[in-house]
């Protein structure tokens, strides 16, 4: 008996267990790190014979399920800062809209893809290396050494963010910040996400950790909350304008990803913040290396279909 199923919008037949497995793997990473996993899932689906545009749109639909499942799990653990998430979301929407216009201008100038690929590799490289080294140093230090020194003078960045107006408390994250900071950072991540064509989870997580100084566990839950709304918007837009959401593909992926997300969320509770960061950094660096190889090695065919991340 064959376990293949025909996907009406993708226009292809794919093995059911392959899709459940892919969903489970990416959902696990989503629950563990608070990333959507689009940067992993779309290339994997393309390898399975799904057209790039359908892979990207249906992936957004399955991320809605995985992030609902994982946000709920993190909410139960008290790891979602709704106030911070809402500010980042507003900034992300503004930045995303601006980023889409920016990419249109770059495309008309003919060098959009160069900018996209280079931004991808540089961002992944910088974020991955920084997170990896910083977490490694923290893990090597003794608990006493990692304790903050009360008398130490605050850094220039800390003084700058304290100087911003309308300081507000974010009790869930344990920080006091101006709402302008998450709004501005949301805009920045939104622009990058639009240029790179991804949800932006793997940029948002380091921004929350290093720029907003939020604890890693709250970062994961809050990032998932923000991704949920971004992907709802993307799914509806893709279904209405491009007709590229394959509901059967999305259901199979989300059956795997919602289960995977639960296991990921449970494991994230058992791991220390620095352990989480070092694993995420390794995944990010792995994707960066894979992209770099794709940029250096000659492709098998010099023509490709449009679309995808």
């Amino acid at each position, binding site marked *: 008996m064959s376990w293949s199923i*025909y996907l009406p919008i993708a*226009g292809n*037949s794919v093995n059911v267990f392959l899709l459940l497995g892919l969903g489970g793997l990416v959902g696990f990473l989503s629950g563990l790190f608070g990333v959507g996993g689009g940067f992993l899932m779309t290339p994997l689906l393309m390898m399975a014979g799904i057209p790039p545009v359908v892979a990207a749109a249906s992936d957004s639909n399955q991320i809605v399920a995985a992030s609902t499942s994982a946000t709920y799990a993190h909410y139960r653990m008290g790891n979602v800062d709704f106030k911070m998430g809402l500010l980042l979301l507003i900034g992300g929407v503004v930045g995303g809209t601006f980023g889409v216009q920016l990419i249109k201008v770059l495309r008309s100038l003919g060098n959009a893809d160069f900018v996209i690929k280079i931004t991808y590799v540089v961002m992944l490289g910088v974020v991955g290396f920084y997170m990896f080294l910083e977490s490694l140093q923290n893990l090597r230090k003794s608990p006493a050494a990692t304790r903050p020194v009360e008398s130490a003078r605050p850094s220039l960045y800390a003084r700058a963010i304290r100087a911003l107006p309308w300081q507000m408390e974010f009790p869930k994250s344990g920080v006091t910040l101006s709402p302008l900071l998450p709004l501005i950072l949301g805009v920045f991540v939104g622009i990058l996400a639009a240029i790179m064509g991804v949800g932006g989870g793997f940029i948002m997580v380091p921004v929350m950790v290093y720029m907003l100084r939020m604890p890693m566990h709250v970062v994961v839950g809050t990032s998932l909350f923000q991704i949920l709304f971004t992907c709802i918007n993307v*799914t509806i837009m893709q279904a209405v304008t491009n007709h590229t959401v394959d509901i059967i593909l999305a*259901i199979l992926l989300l059956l795997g990803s919602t*289960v995977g997300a639960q296991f990921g969320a449970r494991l994230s509770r058992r791991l220390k913040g620095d352990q989480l960061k070092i694993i995420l950094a390794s995944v990010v660096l792995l994707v960066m290396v894979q992209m770099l190889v794709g940029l250096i090695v000659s492709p098998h065919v*010099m*023509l*490709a279909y449009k679309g995808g991340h």
Partner: protein
Amino acid sequence: MRAGTVYVWTVMLFGLFLQAVSTPNYVIAAGTALRVEPNKLHVSESFRGALVTISADIPKGAGAIVEIEGATHDDRLLRQGRRGGLWMSVGEVTVQGAPSVYLVETTPDLASHPDTGAQWGYEALQKRMAFSGAIPEDGVGVLFEQFVRLKESEGLYGLFPRSLKPTRASENHTTVEGEFVLPSNIAPGNYRVVLSVLNSGKLLERQSAEFSIDMTGLPGFLASLAYHHAALYGLAAVVIAIVTGFVMGILFTSKGSH
């Protein structure tokens, strides 16, 4: 215009219309018969591609070429090139006049015939196609080669010499038969089967038939919903995702609490 002339034209046009609407799935001509089995394919949940058998009775001593062609449409593709030592998309290419499917089988005797290449197969196909957009410096030829390679990798294009095999022979005719494997990514629509009968590289006769592929069952319903009620479809996709996410979340939470 005289009434008699109008009458003659009306009868002729009506005759042509009747001929067009009543084209059968096989055509029998003087010495050749072309058969396509099945002539209707249904794409349902379990569709994994299909096998189409073409058979024809051709004059003894003749050779045959069978082509399966899908409807032509514009393909918009990205050309890969090197910039600063890195491979990336360097521009968009529009391919016009390319059939969605192009599969060719020939009888053994035609496989190495010098004249067939120019009239059938990729060389002939290239003459019917046009490329525009980011054309490389080496010209359209390289682009066409890459286009064929892309389509071949999807199983939509292919040349299969010697795949039409003689199965029976009578006094005047030989029956040739070939099987075409249609991949699961073949699009619904009408497909034309063209049989060309040749003798010493010269075309003796050409016949055509059709088969159709349509989407039925759940895939047909969902595709229709996605294209005709897109907002409802998008909303349903989101609601299903949220409900599944919540149900899984609650299931796991209650399991974890025990």
